[in-house]
């Protein structure tokens, strides 16, 4: 299956692939970068595609490769483990699916090993990779500012995760200490490409599985809703002292008499564990109740990919009758009774600025 823009991360071999030679056999004159592939790194990186390293070499080889190619790699696996195991760790560390990886290696044995252990990975020789920029798999339909900065954001994420592991305290305390800020705001036409991109790319946190209200979440769909009187389109931004992630989520709200319905709720999995989805759901519940609605409804088809979103819905008190097994369902919550507090560090329309609570 070759869908446009399916590759999110290219995992590169080092020796005789990104380097013009073998690192450990070159003495004190380590090899230079392969000029053609260094150009491919920059070209694909500009489209928001990540790059990572998997090499049977000591870690210094990765540092050297980063230096001579001038590229900041989102992950590097150096060791003598199988390449397929390295790819699986890279995908898990970046929080992306193995089926979104491509793998480039000059060694036909390594290509065969990855191809057989992980058939969902796109496996290429360096010669093929040199032309990959022209292939649909490496051509995302939309490229936003968030996408172009994605490599840098993954590097920030590694620093944030290291600080989080070293932090003595709960995750909530760490998020506060890191100055986490979630900003919910009305979308403008400038946000439409990013909202469209999120609608295409999100899986774990996408209530509509790409098909809100039975249709595709195209740019035209968002644009049309921006001027619709009975709909709101909302963006969610995230930042902390480690970096600015930009727009990481969004939702569409349909106002009906007595009810708020959310035909699309989505968030990048990169923002998972940072209180974003919980903030959005708490805000929706509070605002719907204040507007006089009796019920909040979020249609969501349960599948194996969106377990994290279903957990967030359940945590926010939304339930769905799944009488007939898997399939479309509407998660709903009654809005009488105590409203949830807005978490600290959240700025949102209709809420007083400050620390929240």
């Amino acid at each position: 299956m070759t869908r446009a823009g399916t590759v999110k991360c290219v995992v590169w071999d080092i020796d005789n692939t990104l380097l013009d030679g073998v690192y450990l056999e070159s003495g004190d004159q380590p090899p230079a970068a392969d000029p053609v592939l260094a150009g491919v790194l920059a070209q694909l990186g500009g489209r928001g595609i990540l790059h990572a390293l998997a090499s049977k070499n000591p870690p210094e080889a990765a540092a050297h490769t980063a230096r001579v190619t001038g590229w900041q790699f989102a992950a590097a696996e150096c060791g003598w483990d199988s390449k397929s195991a390295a790819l699986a760790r890279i995908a898990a560390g970046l929080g992306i699916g193995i089926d979104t990886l491509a793998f480039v290696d000059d060694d036909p044995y390594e290509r065969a090993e990855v191809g057989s252990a992980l058939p969902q990975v796109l496996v290429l020789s360096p010669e093929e990779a040199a032309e990959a920029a022209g292939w649909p798999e490496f051509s995302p339909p939309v490229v936003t500012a968030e996408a172009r900065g994605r490599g840098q954001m993954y590097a920030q994420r590694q620093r944030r995760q290291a600080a989080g592991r070293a932090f003595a305290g709960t995750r909530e305390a760490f998020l506060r200490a890191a100055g986490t800020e979630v900003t919910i705001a009305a979308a403008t036409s400038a946000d439409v490409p990013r909202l469209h991109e999120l609608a295409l790319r999100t899986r774990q946190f996408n209530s509509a599985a790409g098909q809100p209200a039975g249709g595709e979440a195209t740019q035209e769909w968002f644009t049309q809703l921006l001027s619709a009187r009975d709909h709101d389109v909302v963006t969610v931004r995230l930042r902390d002292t480690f970096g600015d992630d930009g727009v990481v989520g969004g939702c569409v709200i349909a106002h009906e008499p007595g009810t708020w319905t959310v035909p699309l709720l989505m968030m990048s999995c990169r923002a998972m564990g940072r209180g974003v989805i919980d903030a959005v759901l708490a805000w929706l519940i509070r605002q719907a109740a204040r507007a006089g609605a009796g019920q909040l409804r979020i249609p969501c088809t349960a599948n194996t990919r969106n377990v994290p979103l279903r957990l967030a819905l359940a945590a926010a008190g939304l339930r769905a009758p799944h009488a007939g097994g898997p399939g479309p369902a509407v998660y709903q919550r009654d809005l009488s009774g105590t409203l949830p507090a807005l978490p600290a560090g959240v700025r949102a329309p209709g809420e007083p600025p400050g620390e929240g609570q």
Partner: protein
Amino acid sequence: MTAAGRPGCPGMPGSLQLAAVTDDLRAFLASATGRDELRHIPAGTELFGPAVGLDSLTGTLLLREIQRRYGVDVAAEDLNLDSLATLGTLAAFVASRSDPPGPP
């Protein structure tokens, strides 16, 4: 995937199994959240309530651990996740489904 001799291995009598699963879940929640006091919460504690505060990240880790340890895919068998109401309801759900089929 449940190693013999571990708490919660198949074949234990029902009530013993339930107590073992409950303790196992307490220990996992304490380590996943870094909050040691969760080792002592009563079975009636709401998982989404303030005491535990299960969110999508901790919840995903918890369900993955349950699947690894007991072979029970809670999210697939309970689409509405009603079993996550309290520690006790989740432990009962897992215990009732992880009973034999014994070793292959």
